Structure formats: structure tokens, C-alpha cells
């Protein structure tokens, strides 16, 4: 009992004496435990919200959606009739739908929204999801409400709407604001702001929603093309088996129809939750392992500093294991305190993560705290701390008692490869069992952990090699550099571990930033290449066309104006022969006996819009393979030639084996897909190769002639591409939007911005976590520096005794370690780049290495290393030489 009191009192007081170090150690435990607890709690909440109340998630007893190609299409009127028939037959009690204008650009342009009374550039938008819901019916299950009021308490009048908060925030829309739709004289009134999560599956996280009464939209826009995108089925009395039968009948309507029963959703959500849990757990374990390394190396510092003290304890008769216990007690305290704080921090992490996820997943997730993860966090935190603390504290146990008399000797600890190796194996085994228990598979836990240990070991060996090679670089007789290289060579292992910590710390942040940047710039580039201007516009009311176009032509700063039109079409024949089209469809994917329904849909979509263009600089910069022909040019004006733009690796052109030089017949169709006028035969003069991020605004088919106009067929919309000087653009866009009710003017950049916003949201969680990991890595670096200054105290004392100034010594230490930090940062970035390239090969996009990000991350690595080195080096450099040489 007395001894126990001694162990813990001494440990607590020793930690207080080494306050900063202790805080470091506690911090690394906190990071690990917070990650484990936070992520596990998150996984629990996600799992329960994904698998309970599935009917609320479905919003019905079954939910039906339609699979589309690149351009997803809604339900056709025949399909809706078939579902109506099921209701008439009594198979289902009823159904309700979610409507949207779909991806049809002409329809999209009709929903240009203006906040009445405002003239700022945020007053107009079309980037939102118009959502049409059946009054007082949707949803069958769960409630959509805001501020305690249900959706249909807010929306009563025909012209009432509610807006989701993401859209409202972006455009400063408030309750009671009035909204105007292009071509509709009546004004809509905003009755409420919904959290986007409230809409569940119906929400659009990227753009935000405006919810309209479906009957109002049906009356105002009878011509929308297949506006129904989801169907919710009511069959409250059906049991599981009956639901499964209804499911079958629904899917029998069309191969493209996908119906989901509660049971199916539960299974797929459970699978998703399980996968998520594994990913989350692995991430947590990595954080914990880094925390563990932080502990091991902080304890190493704590122990190394007090080896003489350990020697004294031995001199007064304590046995090795008792001396070890003295230091292990410190690890235990660090573990307990760190785990406790980590649990609290973990609660915060889970709360924050869930709020972010709500924004992305559009679901109210709530927040609940189970005892399980907290308990696991505490146990795991303490265990890991003890396990990783074992190696350095065992060193204290093996201290030579002579350390009491000769505290400045370099080999105070009796080296034992055997003991160290055994301890490491024991550590790996303990961690392995723990990981196994957490992952639910002991075998893989052990194998994985051992593999990780071996991997880290190999990595260290490689890094030692790198350190050695670097230290052989020319120094140009620069003393500071010479001394640094000398020191690196002398302590290769420590330099390598510093590199490892820094590179792993930088890897996460670098990867996330670079990945987001690559995706974004890839998108920006594709959009720019395809659009060929910075503003696109659509005219809904032909009456406004001439005046609007004249205004643009005369406007300041307009450098390009490229008008055109889009027509809804369908493919009727190849080379003038409808049979040829038929046979190409049947011989495509011959091993499967022709195209399946989804592929057919994609073929149909591909030929569903023809874009008539002006031949000018706004033509998209597409890439053509060697046999792919060319872009439209002057020679095509007035001729029926087309260029086809492949969007994916498996475009309709490949299925149909279309070649340059062949002819395709396209017929204009009305909104109900009925042909109008005669089919027009076009010669294919170019088929572009697939672009990485397929983007198209006006469809995939371009021609420089307008044969449909000649037939007197009105276009689905008149469109134009405009290039405007940066300085004038925003004003021009705003003015046009406000001046012409039926003209929708969009800045191309706004679309990319929207996407960037979503990307920002998505990356908050990984960025925060990897920021924490970087901090933990910095702690490790700080410890490594502290250790090396400790080992060099004598040398420093000598240097000072022969007259070196404290400042010179500080500079030397900072230089040495900052250089290492910089190299570590480089390695981390190189690793991140490697991962990025691998991902890009898998996903098929061009990698962008932004100099800004690289510079920023490197600067971060340098600043952090320099700061932590200063932290450790200044006290070391200030020590009085006498104290050091006497071995104080």
C-alpha cells in the first residue's frame, strides 16, 4: 500500500514537474481515443438511423425510382398509368410522387427564380431543385416540418412554397419573401425554411430545394418532360410477403424501374452501415496507433531525462521491475487522464461529424451516446498507453545502477535486443488482440497489426536509407549544413522516425487538399472546355429573344456572343435505314444478346437533344481520336453535319458502332416524345473520345445548321453562350436576369462554385481528423527533437564552454530539424501524390498538382517543425555549461 501510494504520488508529481511533456503525451492519447470514441458513436447513430424506421426513410411502404443513363429520366406517362392500374386493381392503397423538371435544359431554364424586390446578383438563380409534392399527402411516413409546423401547415395556398436552408442561406431568402418564376405572373410566397435534412431522400444537398404544390405546377407547366422522379407507394396492410409481391409487380412494369421494400432497404442500409463502421474503425485505429507512437516517444523522453534518477532508485535497492513500475505509473496516469478527456472530445467529434453528415446525407440523424463506445474508448486508451509505454519504461527498469554515479554516460541502459524485440512482439500481440476484438475478427486483427508493425519497420528502414543518402549531398562547405548532415548520419534512426511522423502527418492533409483540388479543377477545366464561354443563357419566351440578344450584343465587355437552339429529338435510322438501327441495337453486346433496357435508355438519351450552334470560339474544345473526325467548322455552316460528344467510356456511339462518315436520321419530337416533322439525315463528321469528367450543357449532338427551323418546328429553347470580361460579367448577368423575365442567364463558374461548396462540406470531417493527426505527428517531432537535444546536452555544454553563443546553437538545432521536417513534408506530399495518381488511374481523371497547395503544406511542415524545435531547443541552448558538464 505504501509502495502503491509512492508509485502514484511520485508519478503524478513527476508529471506535474514535466508539465509540457505530460500535456503532449495526454494530447496524443486524447487524439487517439477521441477518434475511436467519436467515430464509433457516429457509426452507432448512423447504423440506428439507417436501419430503424425504414418506412420513414422510404417515405412509403415501398419507394420506386427509375434508373437512367447519364441523363436520368423520369417516369413516362405509360409507366405512371401502369402504377395507377395497380391502385385501381386494389393491389396498393395509393401512391404519391415527387416531381422535378429533371435534367432537361429547357425545363431547367423554366424554373428561373427571382426574389422579388431585390436587385443584387444573388436575387436570381436556377441552381436549385424545384420539388413538386402532392398537397396534404406527401409523405406517407415521417413528418416534414419546420419550427414545429408541418409541411402542409406551412404550404396552404396554391402559391405557397418552402425553401431549404442551404438555398435560403446562399440567396438570402427569408420567410414571407416573394419569389417569381419565369413566365408565371403570380408570385409565390415563402412560408418556411426547412432544414434540408427534413426532406430526406427528396432533398438536393448540392443546390437546395424549393417545394411547390404539385397541382400548381401541373397547371402552370403542363409541358414538362417526364417530371416524376420518385414514387411512394401506400400499402399499410401488406405484410412482408405481400410487399415483396408488390415489389415484383412494380419492377415488372419496366426493367428500369427499381422498387425498394422496407426489408430491402434495411438489408442494404445494414450493409452500408457495416462497411462504414469498418472504414471508420480503421481510421480510428490508425489515429490511435499514431497516438500510441506519440505515447511511446513521449515516455521515452520522460524516461531518458530521468535515467539517473532511476539509477539512484536502483542504488537504494529497488529492483528492475519496481523501477519500471515507477515510470509505468506515469504512463497509467497519462492513459487514464488522456482517455477521459478523449472520451469527452470524442462526444464532441461525433456530434460535429453527425451535423456535417446531416448536411450531406439530408437526414436528421440526432445524437445519442451509448455506454459501449465510451467504455471501449477508456479501456482501449489505457491499454494502448500502457502497451506503448512498456518499451520505454522497460528501459528505465534496465538502467545501470551506475547511472547514479555517472549520469552523463551515453549507455545508461543495459541494451538488450532480445528484451526489446520480445516487448515489441508483445506490444504487437496486445494491439492485435485489441484490434481483433474491435473489428470482430481476431485473426485479421492480429495479422493486420503485425503487418502494420512490419510495414512501419520497413518504412523506417527505407527512411534510414533516405536519411543516409541525403546526408551525403554536397554541403558547399556550409558549416550549418555540414553539422546537420553529420548529426543525421549519427542518429539515422531518430532522423528517420522524425521523417516518418512528419510525412504521415502531412500525407493526410496533403491528400485531402490535393484530391479536392484535382476534382474541382478537373471539373472547371472540363466545363470551360465544353462550354467555351463564361455565361450561358436560355430564352423561354421567343418574344423576348430579339431584344435580349440585341442588349447583349451591345453590352460592354462582351467578347463573344454565340446563339443557338436546342431541339428535342429521337434517332430513327442509321444510313437512312431504320432496320440498320434495329440490327445495330441487337448486335451490340452480342454475348448478352443486345442492349439491356438501361443501355437502351442511354442510347435514347444520347440522341434526345440536338444543339444547333454558331461556328465560332464557343464551340467546345473536344478531343478526337485518330479515326474520330473533327470539330464543326465554317464548311459545315448550312450543311446537315453533326459532331457527337462522347461523355463516358461506354457511349451510345460505341454500342451502335457508329463511324465517322455514316449518316443518322433525327426527328424532332414534342414534349410527349411524339414525332413532329420529318426525320432529318445528318452526316457524322466527328465523334469525340470520352472526357474524364463528362460535362455537357446542351446535349451531346451539335450541328451548324438548323433544319428543324426550316420545317417550322419551334425549339425547346433558344440558347446562347457569351464570353464577358471578368469585370463586367456579374453586372451583365444580373441586369439581363432582372430585365428579361423569360431569359435565364447563368455564370458557368456558379455551377463549379456550388460543387466546390459541397466539396468543402464533405471534406470538413477528414480534414479535421487529419489535422489532429498532423498535430499528433508534430508532438512526435517535438519529442524526437527533445530526445536528441537531451542526448547532446554534453556536446552543447562543450560548445558553450568553448564560447559558442546560445543563439548559434539554437539556429543549428532549428536548422537541422526544420530541414528534416521539410524533407518529411516532401515525402508526405510525394506519398499523397502517389495515392492521388493511383486513384486517378482507377477513376480516370487528370491529376493536378496545385503549387499553392504544395507550397502551403510544405510551409506548414516547415513552420510546425521550426516551432516545435524552438520549443525544445531554446531551453537546451540556454542551459549553463557548468550544469551540464557537472551532470546536473
Amino acid at each position, binding site marked *: 500500500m505504501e509502495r502503491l501510494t509512492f508509485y502514484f504520488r511520485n508519478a503524478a508529481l513527476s508529471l506535474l514537474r514535466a508539465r509540457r511533456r505530460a500535456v503532449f503525451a495526454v494530447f496524443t492519447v486524447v487524439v487517439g481515443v477521441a477518434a475511436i470514441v467519436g467515430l464509433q458513436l457516429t457509426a452507432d447513430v448512423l447504423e440506428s438511423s439507417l436501419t430503424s424506421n425504414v418506412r420513414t426513410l422510404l417515405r412509403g411502404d415501398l419507394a420506386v425510382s427509375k434508373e437512367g443513363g447519364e441523363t436520368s429520366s423520369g417516369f413516362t406517362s405509360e409507366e405512371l398509368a401502369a402504377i395507377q392500374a395497380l391502385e385501381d386493381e386494389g393491389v396498393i392503397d395509393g401512391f404519391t410522387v415527387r416531381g422535378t423538371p429533371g435534367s432537361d435544359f429547357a425545363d431547367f431554364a423554366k424554373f428561373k427564380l427571382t426574389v422579388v424586390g431585390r436587385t443584387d446578383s444573388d436575387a436570381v438563380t436556377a441552381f436549385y431543385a424545384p420539388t413538386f409534392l402532392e398537397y396534404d399527402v406527401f409523405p406517407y411516413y415521417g413528418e416534414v416540418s419546420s419550427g414545429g409546423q408541418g409541411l402542409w401547415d406551412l404550404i396552404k395556398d396554391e402559391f405557397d412554397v418552402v425553401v431549404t436552408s442551404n438555398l435560403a442561406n446562399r440567396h438570402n431568402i427569408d420567410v414571407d419573401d416573394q419569389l417569381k418564376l419565369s413566365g408565371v405572373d403570380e408570385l409565390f410566397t415563402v412560408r418556411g425554411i426547412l432544414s434540408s435534412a427534413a426532406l430526406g431522400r427528396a432533398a438536393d444537398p448540392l443546390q437546395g430545394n424549393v417545394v411547390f404544390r404539385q397541382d400548381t405546377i401541373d397547371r402552370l407547366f403542363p409541358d414538362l418532360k417526364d417530371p416524376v422522379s420518385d414514387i411512394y407507394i401506400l400499402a399499410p396492410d401488406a405484410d412482408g410477403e405481400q410487399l415483396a409481391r408488390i415489389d415484383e409487380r412494380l419492377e415488372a412494369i419496366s426493367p428500369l424501374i427499381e422498387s425498394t421494400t422496407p426489408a430491402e432497404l434495411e438489408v442494404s442500409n445494414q450493409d452500408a452501415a457495416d462497411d462504414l463502421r469498418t472504414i471508420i474503425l480503421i481510421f480510428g485505429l490508425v489515429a490511435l496507433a499514431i497516438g500510441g507512437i506519440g505515447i511511446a516517444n513521449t515516455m521515452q523522453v520522460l524516461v531518458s531525462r530521468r535515467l539517473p534518477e532511476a539509477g539512484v532508485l536502483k542504488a537504494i535497492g529497488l529492483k528492475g521491475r519496481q523501477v519500471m513500475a515507477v515510470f509505468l505509473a506515469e504512463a497509467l496516469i497519462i492513459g487514464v487522464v488522456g482517455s477521459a478527456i478523449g472520451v469527452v472530445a470524442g462526444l464532441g467529434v461525433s456530434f460535429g461529424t453527425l451535423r456535417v453528415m446531416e448536411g450531406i446525407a439530408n437526414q436528421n440523424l440526432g445524437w445519442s451516446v451509448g455506454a459501449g463506445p465510451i467504455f471501449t474508448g477508456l479501456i482501449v486508451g489505457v491499454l494502448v498507453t500502457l502497451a506503448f509505454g512498456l518499451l520505454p519504461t522497460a528501459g528505465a527498469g534496465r538502467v545501470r545502477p551506475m547511472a547514479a*554515479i555517472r549520469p552523463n554516460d551515453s549507455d545508461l541502459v543495459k541494451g538488450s535486443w532480445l528484451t526489446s524485440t520480445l516487448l515489441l512482439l508483445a506490444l504487437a500481440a496486445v494491439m492485435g488482440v485489441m484490434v481483433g476484438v474491435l473489428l470482430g475478427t481476431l485473426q485479421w486483427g492480429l495479422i493486420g497489426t503485425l503487418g502494420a508493425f512490419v510495414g512501419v519497420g520497413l518504412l523506417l528502414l527505407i527512411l534510414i536509407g533516405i536519411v543516409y543518402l541525403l546526408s551525403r549531398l554536397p554541403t558547399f562547405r556550409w558549416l550549418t549544413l555540414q553539422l546537420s548532415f553529420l548529426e543525421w548520419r549519427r542518429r539515422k534512426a531518430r532522423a528517420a522516425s522524425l521523417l516518418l511522423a512528419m510525412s504521415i502527418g502531412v500525407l493526410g492533409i496533403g491528400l485531402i487538399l490535393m484530391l479536392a483540388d484535382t476534382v474541382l479543377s478537373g471539373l472547371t477545366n472540363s466545363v470551360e472546355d465544353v462550354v467555351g464561354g463564361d455565361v450561358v443563357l436560355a430564352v423561354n419566351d421567343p418574344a423576348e429573344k430579339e431584344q435580349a440578344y440585341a442588349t447583349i450584343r451591345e453590352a460592354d465587355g462582351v467578347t463573344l456572343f454565340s446563339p443557338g437552339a436546342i431541339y428535342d429529338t429521337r434517332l430513327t435510322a442509321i444510313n437512312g435505314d431504320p432496320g440498320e438501327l434495329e440490327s445495330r441495337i441487337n448486335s451490340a453486346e452480342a454475348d448478352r444478346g443486345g442492349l439491356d433496357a438501361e443501355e437502351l435508355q442511354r442510347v435514347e438519351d444520347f440522341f434526345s437533344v440536338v444543339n444547333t450552334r454558331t461556328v465560332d470560339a464557343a464551340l467546345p474544345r473536344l478531343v478526337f481520336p485518330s479515326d474520330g473526325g473533327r470539330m464543326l467548322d465554317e464548311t459545315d455552316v448550312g450543311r446537315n453535319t453533326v459532331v457527337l460528344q462522347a461523355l463516358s467510356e461506354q457511349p451510345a456511339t460505341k454500342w451502335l458502332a457508329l463511324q465517322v462518315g455514316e449518316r443518322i436520321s433525327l426527328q424532332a419530337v414534342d414534349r410527349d416524345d411524339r414525332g413532329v416533322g420529318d426525320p432529318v439525315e445528318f452526316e457524322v463528321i466527328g465523334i469525340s473520345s470520352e472526357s474524364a469528367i463528362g460535362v455537357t450543357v446542351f446535349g451531346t449532338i451539335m450541328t451548324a445548321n438548323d433544319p428543324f427551323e426550316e420545317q417550322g418546328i419551334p425549339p425547346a429553347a433558344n440558347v446562347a453562350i457569351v464570353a464577358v470580361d471578368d469585370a463586367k460579367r456579374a453586372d451583365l448577368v444580373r441586369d439581363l436576369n432582372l430585365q428579361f423575365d423569360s431569359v435565364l442567364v447563368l455564370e458557368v463558374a456558379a455551377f463549379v462554385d456550388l460543387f466546390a461548396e459541397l466539396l468543402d462540406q464533405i471534406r470538413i470531417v477528414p480534414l479535421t481528423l487529419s489535422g489532429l493527426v498532423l498535430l499528433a505527428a508534430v508532438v512526435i517531432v517535438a519529442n524526437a527533437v527533445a530526445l536528441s537535444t537531451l542526448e547532446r546536452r554534453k556536446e552543447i555544454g562543450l560548445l558553450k564552454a568553448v564560447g559558442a553563443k546560445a543563439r548559434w546553437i539554437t539556429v543549428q538545432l532549428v536548422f537541422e530539424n526544420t530541414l528534416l521536417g521539410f524533407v518529411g513534408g516532401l515525402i508526405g506530399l510525394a506519398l499523397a501524390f502517389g495515392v492521388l495518381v493511383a486513384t486517378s488511374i482507377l477513376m480516370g481523371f487528370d491529376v493536378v498538382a496545385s503549387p499553392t497547395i504544395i507550397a502551403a503544406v510544405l510551409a506548414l511542415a516547415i513552420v510546425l517543425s521550426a516551432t516545435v524545435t524552438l520549443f525544445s531547443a531554446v531551453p537546451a541552448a540556454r542551459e549553463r555549461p557548468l550544469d551540464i558538464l557537472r551532470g546536473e
Partner: protein
Amino acid sequence: MPENGDQMTENGVVLQGDGLTKQFRSGDLVVDALRGVDITIKRGEIVAIIGPSGSGKSTLMGILGGLDSLTEGRLEVGGVDVTSMGENQLAEIRNAYIGFVFQQFNLMPTLTAVENVALPIQFASTRKFNPRERATELLTTFGLQDRLKNRPSQLSGGEQQRVAIARALANDPPLLLCDEPTGALDTENGNLVLDTLFQAQAKLGTAVIIVTHDPRVAERANRTLVMTDGRFGPAG
């Protein structure tokens, strides 16, 4: 293993070393720190060891106190051969039979004076004293009754060294090893420490080996050994 101090001093010999040799090896470099030292210490005797720096005095103290291993030779503490004892047995020997006083005091910085003195008793395998009572008693005899609850950082060097002596004597060991106990102190404090040391020695009958550069210490010793180059030379 001897059971207590009285039994082990039956023949009056507290410590016996024959041909004690210690070599340090680092790479090709071999340092002969001790070259065959013979030494016998009798109960209650005060032996001073003097000699130039680097002659091997501290090395010898480490060997005699079981802090370091021998390269060659044989060492008996209280009639028991400790030459080939294991770590843990040696620790027990150090705890029960040997007290150390170092030049740098080496008190535990986290513990008060009393706790420092009580520590060796708490870790004794067979306990002869109540830790706190014994510690208080020793410190009081050393005139530190007002400093019992102070930490080392709140004590002067002289006071710290007196606490260290009390700690060395806590288990009433038959042998005290002091390596330049006044080396880090000014003359006045040094004298006070020496007075304390000899006073306690007289009272407890502990044998003392004291390494020193101070001729006055040698005067108070029963005998003085001169170490040069890892050997004892002629006295004087």
C-alpha cells in the same frame, strides 16, 4: 544470504574484495579502470580514499556497492560472495547492507525529506523499522526536524546532503559508501555534512568508505588509501 547486520559482522569483516579488476571497452579502446584492487573493510571503520581524477575511485565505489559488475576478481559483502549474484539479489543487498551518498545528493525531487528517507525502508524485503518513524528520528538527530516536509528544491545543498545521509542510513546498513560527499558544497556546509556523517557513524557503528579530495577528511579517517591508476599505492 546473511540475515542481518549483526550476523554478517561476526568476524568483524564487512566487506572483502580480492583482485578487483574493471575494464571498460568501447570498440578497440580498452580502459583499465581498476587493476587488481584488494580491500578489506572492518566493522565501524572509517576508510578514506584519495587519488587523482580518473584514477578509478568512483569505479571502485560502484563495484563495492554492487552497482557495477566486475571484470575479474571476487567480492564478498558480509561474508557472502556477491560476485556472480543476479540483479534482483544485488538490489536486496544494496537495500539492506549498503548506504550510498553521492556527490550530487540525488534525492527524489518529488518526495519530501521524510519520504526520501523512508523510501529504502518501504522497499526493504524484511522490514526492520517503521518507515516514517525511522525517517523522522534520523532527520531529527541530524538537526532537520524543521525540514521534514520540505522537498529537495526547498532545501540548501548542505541540508539535501544531510537528508541523503539519513536516507543512506535508513535501513541501518553496516556499510556506507560516500563518493565525494562534500564535492558540491562550500566549506562551511561541507564541514556540517562531515560532522553529521561522523556523528552518525560513531553512534551506529557503521563502516564508512569515503572518497574525497579533502585532506581534513583523511585526517578523521582510521586509514587512508591512495589510488593511482586503478591501484592502491602507498599511503600518504
